[in-house]
């Protein structure tokens, strides 16, 4: 497994639990009280910070497990990376457009922030799944 593939597994291993914990903390509140009273800022900050820190640590561990491969990537790695990023970008754009529409319709900050947050998380996770699938299946850029 190349370092870049390991790095994408790190995103999945870290990202899925992060998203689940955030959802578990926020969704019950959304269902049980008015949106204005939902405590979402702190969970979102912890989720974003935790995701970034855990990703960095995961990459350090992945690099330490095989130092010779950590700085090695080739044309196929770069093509797979670009392809996965392009797929993820569409979700990021979808989240941003949703946030724009919510802002234009004067929606609560909660919905605007969560549209951006979920768009970003979905982009990271789907991008990683796409790259891992490309590593294991047929992959041509033309």
């Amino acid at each position, binding site marked *: *497994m*190349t370092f870049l*593939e390991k790095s994408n597994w790190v995103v999945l291993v870290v990202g899925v639990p992060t998203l689940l914990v955030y959802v578990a903390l926020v969704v019950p509140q959304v269902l049980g009280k008015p949106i204005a009273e939902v405590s979402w800022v702190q969970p979102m900050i912890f989720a974003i910070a935790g995701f970034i820190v855990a990703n960095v640590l995961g990459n350090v561990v992945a690099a330490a497990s095989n130092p010779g*491969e950590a700085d*090695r*990537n*080739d*044309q*196929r*790695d770069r093509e797979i990376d670009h*392809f996965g990023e392009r797929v993820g970008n569409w979700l990021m754009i979808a989240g941003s457009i949703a946030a724009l529409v919510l802002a234009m319709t004067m929606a609560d900050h909660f919905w605007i922030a969560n549209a951006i947050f979920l768009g970003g998380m979905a982009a990271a996770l789907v991008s990683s799944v796409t790259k891992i699938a*490309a*590593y294991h*299946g*047929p*992959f*041509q*850029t*033309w």
Partner: protein
Amino acid sequence: MVKPTRVTNSIRSLRFANGEMTQADLADRVGVTRQTIIAIEQGRYSPSLEMAFQIARVFRVPLDEAFQYSDELR
């Protein structure tokens, strides 16, 4: 991105004809990862023209001896 390819290759037989060169050795000589050599050998990835020339050069054979363009989709 799953697309059929007509490109086939003889890398596996060339490796064995060259002192049973390992995939890791070939990867080192071409400057790619071993996973990329595996993907090329299995027909899961078609290399660029430049990488194809580099692979053929390692075996000291013409390009069309290392890579072929089949009449049928694989």
